[in-house]
């Protein structure tokens, strides 16, 4: 039972990342009808926002400490980050320590801007072109973004630790009398993902803007005829989708040190998630994200591997193939949306 619960928990944090990326993908597909292969790259850019912020905070100057000497007797040079000298060592140190959560604030404007530029500069011209062209051009864009990041940050993963207080493990089972040791940051990540998903759904459901966007998703032409500038709202939705992917990336950095190809690794899986959930269905994307995340972690349990060797590597693809063949429109896909 313990192991069972632990696997569910293990699946949830990966599932959260899948769900967030798939949510963004579906938002873009549902509004603009564009298959965005560069979405993984947006996830990666978000992660590198966190890296950048951490680097900015750790910018430091060198001073010679007259009281200390190194083992050769020379005066010791001490590095002091600017933040610490401005705000005092205590508060400044805390800022550096909390750079990953703070990067959320830093990443939102950047990601929205990146989204706007992408949509207005490139994707706008591809609405009328076939899906294959959209896949190809965004695939090219993904390569370019990935290589640019590689050029500036190098090919090696850059460790970006979580704040010290959130870095340990917690015994979740204490409440129900079981032993469930689990890293705190992963719980934070899951809660964060739920928060973002909730916010996006609330935004679409309870605001006028969201209502117009939903109407536009159902019938773009009619909304346009009613005198609403639907294109502009869809551009904003693209920005929001980019921000969702970016935030998923920011918060994921302590779990996996970011490197330049992390986006591609997640993209393939997220596409599978979107297809399983049903193209264009937002709840479907979220549901499929969590379901596949949990399934993946179940499949890596020992009895599953001993039953079917290698199942942990292929379970997601296997599920996708079965779903696509048995239920073409995915778990919660709407009827008639790309069903052929």
């Amino acid at each position: 039972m313990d192991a069972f619960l632990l696997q569910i928990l293990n699946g949830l944090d990966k599932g959260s990342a899948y769900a967030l990326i798939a949510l963004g993908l579906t938002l873009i597909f549902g509004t603009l009808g564009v298959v965005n292969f560069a979405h993984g790259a947006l996830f990666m850019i978000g992660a590198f926002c966190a890296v950048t912020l951490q680097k900015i905070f750790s910018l430091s100057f060198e001073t010679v400490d007259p009281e200390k000497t190194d083992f050769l007797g020379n005066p010791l040079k001490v590095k002091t980050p600017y933040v610490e000298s401005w705000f005092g060592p205590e508060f400044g140190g805390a800022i550096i320590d909390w750079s990953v959560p703070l990067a959320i604030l830093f990443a939102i404007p950047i990601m929205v801007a990146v989204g706007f530029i992408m949509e207005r500069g490139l994707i706008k011209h591809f609405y009328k072109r076939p899906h294959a062209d959209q896949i190809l051009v965004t695939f090219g864009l993904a390569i370019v973004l990935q290589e640019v990041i590689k050029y500036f940050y190098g090919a090696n993963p850059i460790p970006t630790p979580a704040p010290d207080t959130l870095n340990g493990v917690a015994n979740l089972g204490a409440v129900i009398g079981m032993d469930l040791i689990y890293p705190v940051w992963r719980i934070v990540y899951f809660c964060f993902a739920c928060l973002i998903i909730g916010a996006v759904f609330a935004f679409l459901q309870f605001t006028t803007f969201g209502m117009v966007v939903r109407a536009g998703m159902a019938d773009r032409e009619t909304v346009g005829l009613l005198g609403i500038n639907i294109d502009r709202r869809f551009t904003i939705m693209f920005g929001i989708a980019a921000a969702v992917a970016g935030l998923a990336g920011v918060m994921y950095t302590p779990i996996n040190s970011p490197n330049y190809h992390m986006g591609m690794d997640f993209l393939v899986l997220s596409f599978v998630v979107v297809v399983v959930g049903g193209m264009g269905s937002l709840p479907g994307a979220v549901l499929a994200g969590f379901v596949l995340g949990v399934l993946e972690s179940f499949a890596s349990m020992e009895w599953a591997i001993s039953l079917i060797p290698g199942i942990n590597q292929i379970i997601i693809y296997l599920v996708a193939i079965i779903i696509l063949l048995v239920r073409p429109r995915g778990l919660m896909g709407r009827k008639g949306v790309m069903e052929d």
Partner: protein
Amino acid sequence: MFGLDKRDTTLLLIVAGLTIFAPFLLNPFPTDSGLAQFNAGYPDLMQRFVIFGIFAIGFNILFGLTGYLSFGHAAFLGVGSYSAVWMFKLLSMNVLPAIILSVIISGLFALVIGFISLRRSGIYFSILTLAFAQMSFSLAYSVLTPITNGETGLQLTLDDPRVLGVSATADGSIPVTNLFGMEMRSTYHLIVGPWDFQFNMGYYLCALVMIAAFYLSIRIFRSPFGMMLRAVKSNQQRMNYTGLNSKPYTLAAFVISGMYAGLAGGLMASMDPLAGAERMQWTASGEVVLMTILGGAGTLIGPVLGAGFIKYFENIFSKINDNVLHGWFSFLPDGLEDFVVFIIHPFIGKGWHLTLGILFMLVVIYLPGGLVEGGQRIGNWFKGRKKSDAHQSKTNPAE
């Protein structure tokens, strides 16, 4: 000739001429000159040109004719490589049975995957093929290690049985791949003055296979079967309404293009007898998509051009470094020289993929027909300037 009309015969002869005289054509600079680094006339690179040419020709039969975008074609290449290496391990070092087996096995593999994937079209087809390819890749890395030798890759060893050959040569080394005794790696150097032309046995085998593959693809393009495939691309629904079942045609196209990929994989293993799982990864599938689109999907010569273009520039761009750039721009004033080198620096050497990505995007945006369309446009532009007075207005048929 060979059942082709005049234009296709010319095209085939041009391609055949280019591949056969490639050791001369790709080696225009003397070995001791500064431009020698732009030479591509050495066996390893020439082999890659033609092998990826075959791969792209096969991919084009599926994507160019039917419009089905497969993102998992590298899986067939990988399967082909593995079967060829197994043939070298078990039977003999003769490449012929190895290549035949790799074509057959990858064809069977394509039949199974195609049968399932082709039940859907559009993006779903892309995702399905991608899922299958990634599955094969993961399995090759993990569970199928007895067959694929996992991360190390499948290699020849001294204690392989090789029923029809020898396990080890007289001097105790692993025998080399050959075709009835002609060693694949044997290279004849023709030295003319400062030029060094290299004629490699393996290259010529690949070249002949590619010419045959190209001929076959022309025949497929011009056949009634090819017309059916084009009908699938332009309007599958309408085709179904006329009472034709499109499934057998698309499946046949899928299997044929899978066999081409297997052929390429078999040749790749024949040139260098090892096979690794990374050949099946989806980035490798992406590469053949890039080649085909860059050259011009749906055209005969496009994929070959695209494969040559990408492999050539991959090789050349990766070799250029800052010192070479400084050499080129030394005529500029000092500050400007450094600036120009600084600007170009990200795009060369390890940054080749950046250049490729940008190039690919530009092609998709401005030249959906690839290099071939670019060539045609330039041709039309010249023609158009000559007789711009005669044909001012051209009526377009109403859609």
